[in-house]
């Protein structure tokens, strides 16, 4: 049956080729759109992850002022109890909750303001931009300090040097210097949380808790639960998150609409080809019936032809997407002003599988009616044709 189907398709090579090309273009478009959709979503998610913090627990007061001050490495007049950290860490939606204790020591006559930030190890996943210029990756002991690049340059400190805080009488050993990140971290002095709490007489207190969720979609539930923490309030980076989710949603809708259009065109092309084929081969198919072919055999023959067309078209379409995808990505980058870094084209096995499934589905849907029509041809029609 396969040989017969292939022979039938090759007899009208041009028409078969055009149909395969139509399916290939549709599947190629679909593959590119799905791959771009996935790549764009992954890219944005990666960038959001790169930002580290998704929400922040701060003491009661003006939440946006508090969040802005904390993000800029400035101190707050009020603080959080350490129990708020336990609450945050126990929340099912929270992936990372990092405590921060910040204190600024201004000395205007010397033109300097020391910004000390007490952190613990949990802050590291929230600071993906931290790259060490020199030294060790974390505090060696309680009297270690990691300096932002500008802080190190201002104080002319190298790893292993001493850094003294005249205001608090504490002496630190520089254990690490961060590379320039372009964030407020560049001018900060990072010290162990317990050291900061002792240094600024704030035992068991925190300035803020930086939080990253397991999934940004869990944000509403997390806010609701964490807002109930006594003395604390939650500030989300709502604008950023809202923009992110809107962008992803819009991209998904657009992709699905265009993909649906491409598939519909593809179905109609195959349907048209198969129907024309049945009409052209009415006599031939009737003879097949007259010489003993069952209705089911004729139906299978036509369905197989449709499937062969769409499978061939799907495979070529995938190949097309792989070959042309990079060029299209370059083009798309010019059109999207806020495209995330990294590859926008994520042609994964999942996407390829989806496209092949759509191709098969197209073949089945488009081939059903013509095959059914062919199977209903009466053998007497063959005698009339003869």
């Amino acid at each position, binding site marked *: 049956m396969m040989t017969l189907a292939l022979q039938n398709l090759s007899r009208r090579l041009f028409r078969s080729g055009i149909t395969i090309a139509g399916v290939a273009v549709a599947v190629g478009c679909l593959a590119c759109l799905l791959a771009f959709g996935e790549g764009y979503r992954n890219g944005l998610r990666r960038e959001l992850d790169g930002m580290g913090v998704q929400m922040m627990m701060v003491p009661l007061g003006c939440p946006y002022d508090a969040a802005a001050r904390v993000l800029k490495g400035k101190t707050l007049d009020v603080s959080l109890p350490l129990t708020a950290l336990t609450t945050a860490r126990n929340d099912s939606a929270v992936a990372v909750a990092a405590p921060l204790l910040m204190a600024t020591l201004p000395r205007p006559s*010397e033109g300097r303001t020391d910004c000390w930030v007490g952190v613990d190890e949990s802050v590291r996943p929230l600071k993906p931009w931290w790259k060490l210029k020199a030294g060790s990756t974390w505090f060696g002991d309680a009297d270690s300090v990691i300096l932002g690049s500008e802080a190190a340059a201002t104080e*002319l*400190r190298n790893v292993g040097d001493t*850094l*003294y805080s*005249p205001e608090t009488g504490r002496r630190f050993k520089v254990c690490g210097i961060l590379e320039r990140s372009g964030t407020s971290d560049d001018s900060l002095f990072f010290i162990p949380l317990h050291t900061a709490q002792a240094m600024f007489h704030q035992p068991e207190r925190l300035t803020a808790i930086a939080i990253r969720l397991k999934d940004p979609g869990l944000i509403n539930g997390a806010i609701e639960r964490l807002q109930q923490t006594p003395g604390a309030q939650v500030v989300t980076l709502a604008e950023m998150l809202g923009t992110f989710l809107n962008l992803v949603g819009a991209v998904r809708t657009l992709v699905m609409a265009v993909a649906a259009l491409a598939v519909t065109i593809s179905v109609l092309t195959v349907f048209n080809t198969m129907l024309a084929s049945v009409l052209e081969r009415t006599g031939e198919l009737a003879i097949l019936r007259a010489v003993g072919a069952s209705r089911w055999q004729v139906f299978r023959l036509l369905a197989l032809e449709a499937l062969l067309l769409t499978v061939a078209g799907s495979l070529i379409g995938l190949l097309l997407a792989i070959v042309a995808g990079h060029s299209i990505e370059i083009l798309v980058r010019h059109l999207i002003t806020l495209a995330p870094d990294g590859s926008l084209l994520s042609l994964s096995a999942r996407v390829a599988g989806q496209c092949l499934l759509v191709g098969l589905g197209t073949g089945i849907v488009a081939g059903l009616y013509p095959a059914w029509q062919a199977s209903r041809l009466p053998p007497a029609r063959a005698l009339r044709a003869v």
Partner: protein
Amino acid sequence: MILALLGLSIGAAALYVALARSSEPADIQVAHAGAGDLALHEHPSVGLCPWREPERDRRQFFPTSTDVREDTLILSGKRTEVARQLGRPATGEENALKVYRILNQEQLLGSFVARRVRGESGVIELLLAVGTDGRIVGAKLQRLREPEDVAHVLQSASWLGAFTGKDRTSSWQLGGDIPDVPPAAKTSAAAVLDAARTLLILLGVADGSAAPGTDRR
């Protein structure tokens, strides 16, 4: 058509390679940097030091001054002379010196120069008031984060006051020409003395004075 596309592709690739190469000179420069420059990279950049309290310092060291003029003196053409007087190769940052000329109407009274140095516990900013004869009129530590006992010694009138009258040919021996300091303050004190001497040499060479007391500007 195919040939045209092929030609365009080759052209684009050539352009890309050319652009990529054009961003490389900085790396090449580092690779061929001299020993003096490489030594500089081992320490944090000294950079330019700001003058933090101009009004107050002018009143203190040049009470009759009426005006300030800011000059940036380029020393890159005098590196050999600078190195000879310093007794070591000049660093990249010693190619320029910012000088604040203190004037009374049009008459030059002296200059202020500042320098950041690596103290034992953090940066120290030294400000020197230098007369037209190249001798120190006064010195001040604008900024330091040394422990209190060290800071007290370094900022004392007896220690900083010993700088007054010194010029670039003077001896800067700690414990000799300059009063000794406790062991805890020795590193920072030595850094400050070296900075003072360096500033005087840079200023002298930049101004082209052949010997102390000669102002050839």
